[in-house]
């Protein structure tokens, strides 16, 4: 299964209270600000030790009785199959090391990105101190002289309460990207 978040239960559950909604949205805005300003180490500090950063591959699948997407996930590769990202903390630390190496040509000069996060819907997490959060993103990337990439998709996060300035760490992020063939020469940015 590509994601632990059940669309039906999100839709049928009441909206989160306004203070929590505000807090989570502000967390995302600040997280986006870090990414867009290439503050790699500060962003990395938001990943909890058990982080699972995962982007399955999206496929073109025929609908059968209207099913292919959220209902049976036939569109997505499963956890035993290939993925765009399937990273734990150590693998993410390696990616950070790459970015800080001065030789990371795909991000040196760095991409200019704009992470826009919206449609934030919060439900209770499985653990006591966690939230399941479903959101939409559009990431614009402009690179070097004229390269432009546009990525859109859905993020299914588990946020865990943390004793840091932003109040949360990311325990899990499933990125459901809205492209089957990735329309870019690489995915050297984070979502």
């Amino acid at each position, binding site marked *: 299964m590509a994601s632990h978040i059940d669309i039906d239960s999100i839709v049928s559950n009441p909206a989160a209270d306004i203070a929590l909604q505000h807090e989570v949205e502000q967390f995302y805005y600040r997280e986006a600000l870090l990414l867009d300003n290439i503050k790699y180490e500060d962003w990395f500090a938001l990943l909890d030790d058990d982080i699972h950063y995962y982007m399955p591959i999206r*496929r073109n*699948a025929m609908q059968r009785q209207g099913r292919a997407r959220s209902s049976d996930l036939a569109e997505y590769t499963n956890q035993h199959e*290939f993925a765009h990202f399937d990273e734990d903390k150590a693998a993410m630390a*390696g990616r950070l090391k790459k970015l800080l*190496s001065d*030789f990371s040509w795909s991000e040196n000069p760095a991409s200019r990105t704009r992470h826009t996060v919206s449609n934030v819907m919060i439900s209770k997490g499985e653990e006591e101190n966690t939230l399941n959060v479903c959101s939409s993103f559009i990431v614009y990337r402009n690179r070097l*002289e004229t390269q432009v990439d546009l990525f859109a998709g859905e993020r299914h996060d588990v946020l865990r309460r943390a004793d840091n300035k932003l109040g949360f760490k990311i325990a899990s992020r499933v990125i459901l990207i809205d492209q089957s*063939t990735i329309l870019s020469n*690489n995915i050297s940015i984070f979502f």
Partner: protein
Amino acid sequence: MNAEGTNNPAWSNEEIKKLVSDENGILDARIYNDQALYELELERVFARSWILLGHESHIPNTGDFLNTYIGEDPVILVRQKDASLRVFLNQCRHRGMKLSRDDAGNAKAFVCSYHGWAHDISGKLVDVPFEKQGHCNRLDKSEWSPLQARVDTYRGLIFANWDKEAPSLDEYLSDSKPYIDIMFNRSAAGTEAIGGIQKWVVPANWKFAAEQFCSDMYHAGTMSHLSGIAAGLPDGVELKDVDIPTNGNQFRAKWGGHGTGYYIDEPGLLSAIMGPVITEYVTDSPQARIASERLGSEMFGQRVLAQHMTIFPTCSFLPGINTIRTWHPRGPNEIEVWAFIVVDADAPDHIKEEFRKQNIRTFSAGGVFEQDDGENWVEIQKVFKGNKARKTKLNLQMGLGDSRTDHPDFPGRIGGVYNEDAARGLYQHWLRMMTEPSWDTLKP
């Protein structure tokens, strides 16, 4: 240019022959950026060569199919009732609509979504709606099935070729088979594909990708992948502490443009890419020893490391890393990469999982190695927009004249690991495909 691209082409054979010099190691950059040459390539290279479409394990059961491409032609690869394979153009002969539009699946028939012309899984037209009323029995359905390609396999890999006159796949692979076997013949169980094909677009000419996997160990340890290597270093080890190997070879196929290169005994680069678990599996495990027995030597089974390889034109893979991909051309300035991962079918589950994870981490659209390959090729392609830059003479001279055919351990034409002999072989074969119309002169 005329439709066939052969009778009155924009490029004469004499002009094309001046673009590549195997003897002097010089390339004309127009081979990477000229639209008219590309149109000829589709006709003379892609419609005549064996193109990798997938792995047997992608389509194990009757009716299993995969939608893929030969060049820019969409084709359907289908498993038949008798377990054989068919490849046919994904195009209805009525108005040209696609017959199948999902990436893969299982089909009992392929029915055009336009007017409903129905085809069985072998690609034969079997039913035309209102045939009696509309055609009054004048339609001979046997004349109107989509074009079939030849299909053949080598150690689980499925290739197809439009050209009835082309040599068999076995002949086509020429003397490169022992080097392919290092990845695909390690165990009696063979290999299997991990599910999922990753696809992405690289705005660069297909030959950059094909050549790099054929012949270019040079970029890995010099500049391109330093940050990728850094990403896999254990804590406390710095880039400056890493010894980049120098001991190894390159092989250039005697025919066909195929090539490979590898380090010997020095696991540094492989370990930086795949980590200790896979490095041990490949070099020092019960399975590695079985591979040595099957491949006839410890050299082939356990000591050839961080290997790169291309089967001309667009099938590339990295033994020991186990990514394999087809570089589907999309004009002179763009590739679609279709990549998947293979593992020994009898590898322990934790090894299969480790191959999966390390490939995602390193050799994929987001991989810490592959990210930077895309960067180089794309920038080169942009430079070619320049009037001078697009026809620059490029240097392809490394290792010129150094290869020999009497190496005690490695059959075929062998040179040093930092070398461009295999690349010269690839471009020389490209030149022959582009300028020799008949297999009478071209054949192995």
